[in-house]
């Protein structure tokens, strides 16, 4: 196996507050190989975006990485200073956010935004950068790229803007892209275009992608492996087909059951009782045990086994062993 592009070990993010320390990310470990798409799913507040922001060094204080290690291409990055991190960001790690309008500068032509990024990270001339900007826009499928480089962000539709953001994330040829809900603000047909584009670019360039989303359908179609997060912890990690059709963790199982599916007809949807606990009121033991149908006394006292890479798929004392559900 090739060396992973991104390797996270026991990553913990803490937010000190007046009422104690919150841990939106708590002991999370995973790797992403070159050319691999890792889907990170979970409901709001599960810590999926927080983990992404920790990798790219965009945690807003007082949130900070308080434990664990983050390696990109073998080099540790969580200990880097602000200046060193700034050089890395955009160069080694590209980022695609949910809302394409707020991630582009409304006052700059998109060509200038692309060349600015390239000049900051690559050792090339301005003329070369302009040439590459047009090529980058062509690559992400913007028609008439040589004219559109002089357009402003507001002149593009939502889907086109997200293509520009992807071009921007890719223009310095990073080895890792973090895509945080890249299609949530888009319509279904445009979403299909953007997902296809991400997959194509990732395959052609061998870029690793961390695809953060709450949409299981998007994960099923785009990801190679999936990490399911619950209350800041990794609940389950494994190949996407395995995890979605034969979930081992009761939470994953519940999540799949709550998703309306054509094959399931119009029966009542499965409900996970209750709601995800607040970070300042996490239960003892396994965070999922109050909502878990299989909870036993061990679950109430000791947190589920941590998922280490290679062994174990679900952070659960009593993983489900069952046939396909979907």
């Amino acid at each position: 196996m090739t060396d992973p592009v991104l390797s996270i070990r026991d990553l913990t993010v803490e937010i000190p507050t007046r009422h104690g320390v919150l841990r939106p990310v708590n002991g999370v470990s995973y790797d992403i190989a070159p050319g691999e798409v890792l889907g990170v799913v979970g409901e709001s507040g599960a810590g999926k975006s927080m983990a992404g922001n920790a990798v790219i060094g965009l945690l807003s204080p007082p949130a900070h990485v308080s434990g664990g290690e983050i390696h990109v291409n073998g080099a540790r990055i969580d200990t880097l200073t602000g200046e060193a991190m700034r050089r890395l960001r955009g160069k080694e790690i590209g980022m695609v956010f949910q809302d394409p309008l707020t991630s582009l500068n409304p006052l700059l032509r998109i060509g200038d935004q692309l060349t600015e990024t390239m000049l900051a990270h690559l050792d090339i001339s301005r003329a070369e950068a302009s040439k590459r900007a047009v090529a980058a826009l062509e690559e992400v499928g913007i028609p008439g790229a040589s004219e559109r480089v002089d357009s402003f962000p507001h002149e593009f539709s939502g889907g086109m803007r997200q293509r520009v953001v992807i071009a921007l994330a890719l223009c310095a040829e990073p080895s890792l892209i973090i895509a945080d809900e890249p299609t949530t603000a888009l319509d279904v047909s445009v979403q299909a275009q953007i997902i296809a584009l991400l997959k194509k670019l990732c395959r052609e360039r061998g870029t690793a992608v961390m695809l953060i989303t709450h949409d299981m359908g998007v994960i099923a179609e785009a990801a190679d492996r999936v990490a399911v997060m619950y209350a800041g912890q990794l609940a389950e990690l494994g190949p996407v087909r395995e995890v979605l059709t034969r979930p081992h963790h009761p939470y994953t199982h519940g999540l799949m059951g709550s998703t309306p599916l054509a094959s399931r007809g119009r029966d009542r949807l499965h409900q996970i009782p209750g709601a995800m606990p607040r970070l300042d009121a996490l239960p003892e033991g396994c965070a999922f045990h109050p909502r878990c149908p299989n909870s036993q006394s061990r679950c109430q006292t000791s947190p589920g086994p941590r998922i280490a890479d290679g062994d174990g798929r679900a952070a659960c004392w009593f993983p489900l062993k069952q046939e396909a559900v979907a």
Partner: protein
Amino acid sequence: MGMVNIRNLTRVFDVSKPWLNRVVERREKAFLTAVSDVSFEIAERSVYALVGESGSGKSTIGKMLVGLLGPSEGSVEIRGTDLAREKDAAKIDAVRRDIQMIFQDPFASLNPRWRVRDIIVEPVASRGGNTEGMAERLLEQVGLAARDAGKFPHEFSGGQRQRICIARALASEPKLIVCDEPTSALDVSVQAQVLNLMSDLKDEFGLTYLFISHDLTVVQHMADRIGVLYLGRLVEEADPDALFDDPKHPYTQMLLAAAPQLGNFGREVPPPTGEIPDPINPPTGCAYHPRCPLAADICARDRPEMRTVRGARVACHMVE
């Protein structure tokens, strides 16, 4: 005779610049046709779903149905009463009492300064009805506790707030509830809870829903009849099984193919081409023809009529 009869409904918005700009910049007035000649019927005690992408006019239809917007042309009749044209105030009020609405964003649709009790009973209190014990009873019906009545909206999660919105919608004992993307802001597990609750309440109170959504799987789960909108026009209307097993309009086919599906691991499909055109200058003829794989000359020239094909109503020249 359905509960709701919508005939040739059209809504045009004036999106012109102010007159001075028009004079100085020599611009014409600009009009956006959000809904164009839409007709359908909602049967009593059924769930009619409108699906479509952004800008397809689904929310505009919902707003015209509850009377938040008036139609430019055509009519909305609820139990035989046209709210926009009816003169008898008592009759209008009687119909309005039967309609309620649930909005998408449960954070924006509850007054943060009101207690939950006051929020819930407002549809009845504003008409001077007796509201004693009503909030507590409704809260229990939607799966919250009676003591929650004294709390403020910020003390609840998104799913719980949507339950409060549902309780408020139920307070005036309506017959018809317009649900505009009621679960789009919710997580899947919470969405499942809210959808189940809505199904239960429908059976319990004999409700009729107009369910507006962009999420095809949710619509398939909830609806008895589905209308697909594209650029303000109804392109196809069918029962869920017919629509999902045998989509007839090329746009419906594209929409179904583009929707991500759980079973399709690593699916590689040619993504749809093109984007929704500008509604201020919609294409001539069939609005979908610039993106349509079947498009012929006639599609660019004539707007297709609604035809019945194998149990579905379809607006397409090419469907046989």
